[in-house]
């Protein structure tokens, strides 16, 4: 069997699992039974505080290339942006979004507009709140740092494809005593954000944040589907190690 067919079969099974878990999540009773991610809990708290004190939330989506691997964390960041915008859209200072890619900038504008529209605050939507601030990682960081200073940002969420440059953004947020939450698919970026960000999202936590923010049952279902494959991979690694060790 060719790798392409294996990949196709993997995707089909993934879709089936997501659909099945979606039905399961819709019919099951009780809580979602998800392990606690402290960063997400802090994020919800920070959103509430920002809305209450009239400060602004800054969602940085990074310089993800929407035609590349960076699209996945960018999409996860857009899901988080959607939830945040729905909550904070009616605030005196609605959230501001920065991105480092043209397509991502357009998508972030669409997400903001949709969130405002669905919360009945369509007239409050300002397209300039979703901005392209730099097309390279460092230029993006250079463009995002003034936003934190100038826009009265109290919480900065960095969700997308970030490298080590996110330390500059967290540094800027620290100077304003702001809350910082960061999640990236880049391992180098994760190594940096562990030390720099107040609340790091390590590994796949970036992709799980949508489920924790109640972005939809599909997010929870996809999270369970990931768990299924994760356990399968673990079993496969252990089996392969055992075969290599004893065989």
């Amino acid at each position: 069997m060719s790798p392409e067919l294996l990949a196709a079969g993997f995707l089909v099974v993934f879709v089936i699992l997501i659909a099945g878990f979606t039905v399961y999540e819709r019919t099951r009773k009780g809580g979602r039974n998800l392990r606690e991610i402290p960063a997400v809990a802090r994020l919800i708290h920070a959103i509430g505080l920002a809305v209450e004190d009239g400060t602004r939330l800054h969602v940085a989506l990074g310089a993800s290339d929407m035609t590349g691997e960076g699209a996945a964390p960018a999409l996860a960041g857009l899901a988080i942006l959607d939830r945040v915008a729905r909550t904070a859209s009616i605030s005196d200072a609605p959230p501001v979004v920065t991105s480092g890619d043209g397509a991502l900038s357009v998508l972030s504008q669409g997400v903001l507009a949709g969130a405002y529209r669905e919360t009945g605050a369509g007239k409050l939507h300002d397209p300039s709140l979703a901005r392209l601030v730099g097309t390279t990682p460092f230029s993006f960081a250079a463009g995002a740092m003034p936003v934190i200073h100038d826009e009265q940002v109290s919480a900065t969420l960095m969700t997308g494809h970030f490298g080590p440059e996110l330390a500059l953004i967290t540094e800027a947020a620290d100077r304003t005593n702001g809350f910082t939450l960061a999640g990236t698919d880049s391992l180098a970026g994760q190594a940096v954000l562990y030390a720099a960000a107040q609340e790091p999202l390590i590994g796949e936590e970036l992709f799980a944040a949508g489920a924790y923010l109640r972005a939809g049952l599909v997010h929870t279902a996809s999270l369970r589907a990931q768990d299924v494959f994760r356990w399968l991979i673990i079993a496969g690694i252990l089996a392969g190690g055992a075969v290599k060790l004893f065989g």
Partner: protein
Amino acid sequence: MRFKAPIVSTAVAMLSGLAVLLLLLLPTGLDALYAGVIRWAAALAAVALLVGLVNLVNVHVEKSSGGGSEAVSSIALLAAFGLTFLAALFLGPNGSAAGVEPVNWLFQYVQVPVEAALMALLAVSLVYASARLLRRVPNLFSFVFIGTALLVLLGTSTLATGEFGLISELVTGVHGWITRVPAAAGARGLLIGVALGSVAAGLRILIGTDRPFGG
């Protein structure tokens, strides 16, 4: 019949994604179509970049009319943007055709140093963040994190260990072991999780449950 925009955009997104996926994974023999779709995507990304630039200009035009230090910064940005854009447009990316290379010059003597300076600042920020980590999160993992970083740094430098054979070998060995075993293993595990999350995020787009295009 008039379709609502979210339905149309969702359908287009789903069909485009499925088409690329099928052309990539299945032996359809439609490589030319696949290449064409990829080029469309690249062109659209470039157009999106232009849209983003227009948005950037609009934002800073608004800021420049507001006064204050922000206005000065915005005016400087708009001037630099206009100058670079016009030079590349009329003189070419390199400007070699006109005998001058303003764009190359700007890149080499403005952008690269600026970003290199930011990288240098990043070094400072990382050192500072590492130091503050012990105050912010003074737990075992922070000590492990800092200790590992110090060991790797020590293994990178030849000045500290080069004169001491045994120590140098020990540090180099530890450095190699860390990068080969725990770092690589952890990175593999993280990458697997990230890959699964990426697949899930992509599939949510393909099945239309996530609509980051305003639907």
